[in-house]
């Protein structure tokens, strides 16, 4: 196996493969930053060019492009509060809040570093998992996937804010999200739910325009109302540096690594999809807060809220490659396009990739790692300039941002309905922002609701009630309970500690 690893590395370091990778990185860099052309569409566009290439070169190009998009897409989330690639919304919560405090540079630095860590962990996961990937993926059936989505939904409890009122609001927002996820044609009987006769809603509410509108529009409105600039709420208006952010990543290395692992793991599970990884790691980051008070800081600019999703966004891509290579089953929509790359270069994804063509598989691992290192190296000098964008006056910036939002919403499907959705969700998001209702639970409900319903249905249809007794399900149920109970436990412990303290003080008198 070691020979295969080294062989893979050598193949990537060939001049032509390296050149293709750099080309891919260059293209991916711009695709991630500019809205309007998504990573998946670009992959589909680039795919025909690989016809006739050697497999290593073809994937150096495609993966080089793809892995960079995840990193640069995060930049707009932090700077402008506009979710970049598709669903990187979790990053907006704390990343953009930091930008508003004048800490844009720090957020960008932290994000870039954690993206690199995440990507490397993802690549390592891919490399290490190869011997065990088949039994690993095959042991997670629909019942286990259902429990994973339930666990994700349970994170709503942590993201809900303090006290009874916070929890009630979080639960209500989550429930609304779940309800909204039911819109569309139901997958068991084909009944159209809540479509009000609109063709557009057959497939349900599209997540990209909804999330983009939900987070970006309130921020832009807020910006226009305040009329200053994004970084105006910072203490001196001065920008805190990029290196601070890099150091943050290492200060919280444990968290970054854990979130990378979460991201890689969810990437490996082909049934879950992109949004889940970063929200679960955001939820985990929130839970790593030691006191309830610390938890409150999330959403207002805690760097840990940047590290978590930043790492997970990248590690999930390495994870998603695993089922694609090992089973020919794409782990994400980008991977579905990448499968075409397999066919065009004459490879067949499946057991052969783990035996006969093992060096090619390892070359993909190395491509992921190297492309990300190159991206980070390229981006670093740019960060201070990018950070300065947050000091531009709102009146100049807001129209441009609105353009970004609507172009991003429209070009996902070339549909006007998406713009309406973005507007409606923008209005809802603004109302929730104003009245201090937590927005994260709603998104969680929206993202996870459809998945949870499908897997529950399949589990019951296939196994009757037996699935409740499966070992994986029991373990995950326990974890879910832990996730749900943890915030209450924290608060209870704090109250007891305060009570004990009061008693001691009283005794001391």
């Amino acid at each position: 196996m070691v020979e295969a690893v080294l062989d893979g590395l050598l193949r990537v370091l060939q001049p032509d493969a390296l050149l293709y990778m750099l080309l891919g990185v260059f293209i991916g860099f711009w695709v991630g930053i500019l809205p309007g052309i998504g990573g998946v569409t670009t992959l589909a566009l680039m795919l025909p060019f690989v016809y006739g290439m050697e497999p290593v070169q073809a994937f150096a190009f495609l993966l080089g492009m793809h892995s960079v998009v995840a990193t640069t897409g995060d930049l707009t989330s932090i700077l402008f509060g506009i979710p970049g690639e598709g669903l990187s919304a979790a990053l907006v919560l704390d990343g953009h809040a930091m930008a508003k405090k004048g800490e844009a540079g720090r957020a960008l630095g932290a994000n870039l570093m954690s993206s690199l860590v995440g990507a490397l962990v993802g690549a390592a996961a891919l490399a290490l998992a190869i011997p065990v990937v088949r039994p690993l993926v095959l042991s997670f059936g629909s019942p286990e996937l259902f429990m994973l989505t339930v666990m994700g939904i349970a994170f709503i409890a942590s993201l809900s804010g303090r006290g009874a009122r916070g929890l009630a609001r979080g639960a209500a927002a989550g429930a609304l999200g779940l309800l909204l996820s039911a819109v569309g044609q139901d997958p068991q009987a084909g009944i159209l739910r809540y479509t009000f006769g609109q063709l557009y809603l057959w497939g349900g509410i599209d997540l990209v325009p909804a999330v983009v509108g939900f987070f970006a529009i309130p921020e832009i409105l807020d910006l226009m109302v305040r009329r200053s600039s994004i970084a105006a709420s910072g203490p001196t208006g001065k920008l805190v540096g990029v290196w601070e952010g890099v150091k943050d990543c290492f200060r919280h290395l444990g968290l970054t690594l854990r979130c990378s692992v979460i991201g890689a793991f969810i990437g490996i599970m082909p049934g879950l999809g992109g949004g889940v990884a970063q929200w679960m790691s955001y939820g985990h980051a929130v839970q790593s807060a030691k006191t309830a008070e610390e938890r409150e800081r999330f959403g207002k600019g805690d760097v840990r809220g940047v590290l978590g999703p930043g790492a997970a966004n990248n590690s999930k891509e390495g994870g998603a490659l695993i089922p694609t290579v090992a089973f020919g089953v794409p782990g994400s929509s980008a991977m579905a396009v990448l499968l075409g790359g397999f066919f065009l270069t004459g490879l067949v994804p499946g057991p052969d990739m783990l035996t006969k063509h093992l060096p090619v598989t390892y070359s993909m691992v190395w491509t992921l790692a190297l492309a990300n290192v190159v991206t980070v190296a390229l981006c670093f000098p740019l960060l201070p300039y990018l950070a300065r964008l947050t000091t531009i006056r709102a009146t100049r910036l807001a129209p441009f941002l609105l353009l970004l939002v609507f172009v991003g919403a429209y070009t996902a499907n070339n549909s006007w309905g998406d713009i309406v959705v973005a507007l409606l969700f923008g209005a809802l998001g603004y109302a929730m922002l104003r009245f201090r209702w937590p927005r994260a639970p709603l998104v969680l409900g929206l993202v996870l609701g459809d998945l949870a319903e499908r897997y529950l249905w399949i589990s019951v249809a296939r196994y009757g009630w037996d699935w409740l007794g499966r070992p994986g399900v029991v373990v995950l149920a326990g974890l879910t309970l832990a996730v749900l109970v943890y915030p209450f436990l924290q608060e209870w412990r704090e109250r007891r500690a305060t009570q004990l303290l009061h008693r001691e003080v009283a005794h001391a008198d």
Partner: protein
Amino acid sequence: MRRRVLVAAGILCVLSLASGAGLAQAPFAGKTVTMLVGNPPGGGYDRLARVVARHLGRHLPGNPTVVVQNMPGAAGIVAANHLYHVARPDGLTLGLFNQNMVFGQLLQVEGLRVDMRKWQWVGSLTRETDVFVIRADLPYRHILDLRRADPPLAIGATGPGSGSYDFPLVLKAFLKLNVRIVSGYRGRSDIMLAIERKELDGVAGSWSSLVSFVRRGLVRPLVKTPSENPELKDVPSDVDLVSEPTAKAVLQLHAVPNRIGRPFVLPPGVPGELVRAYRQAFRSLADDPAFRQEAERLGFEVVYTPAEAVLRVVEEVLNSPPGVVRVFKSFFRFGE
């Protein structure tokens, strides 16, 4: 001075006439043709569109650039409505839609505002076959063995209206198979993974999307819709397995769109000469060795079906006898 103006005007007239004539000869020169696809990127239709787009430009007079635009929604209805009513009929937009859309019209699906007969059909480059496969490690060798399957086989599907749901349903009813349909999977890939996990025992789908799994040895085809594909010659055809005339007619009706393959259309209103240019281009594209090789690598069966033949098939479907349509409707719906 006046003479010079006259000469200049004369030259301009001649030039514009010449360019007008030139326009008739190379109508697509310097233009971009948009191929509208009613499916999201990554799937079979999208892959086909992109490989066609890459080679089609060469066969059209003037060698235009051809780009693909995805407009997913309502199983292709959104894109079809758009092409029919909204897109300019200037011949620069070509459409590729769900081959089952003719059923959408037959079953009078709400929202479809297109008359399939009024499209200006360009033709089809591929032919499809639907197959029903089961896990290779199961002991059943012939489709009729599944009558005695114990326990009943779990067949994966995405939802009513898709081939993975409707086809097994009708097979189960007509052939009395002991199978259960487990619906709700997000897509073909999730179903295949579930088959690997032994959570599911079988699936139905188009041959081009299942061929790699068959060749890999994961699944074995048990029944097909009528096809001349040599790789499937030992697999029985569903029409041959039933004797009752209505049942036969329903299965034949179901298989009809496969004879259309994946059809390309132009909206009504596009000038006749442009339509003819496209038809000619498709005819020569089907013989283009570079195109054939790339398409076959992607798993497509390249067979050219001219526009007239496609239109005949559409008419055939829409003129089906009401008795057959009634039974058909009880099994088949139109959906994603």
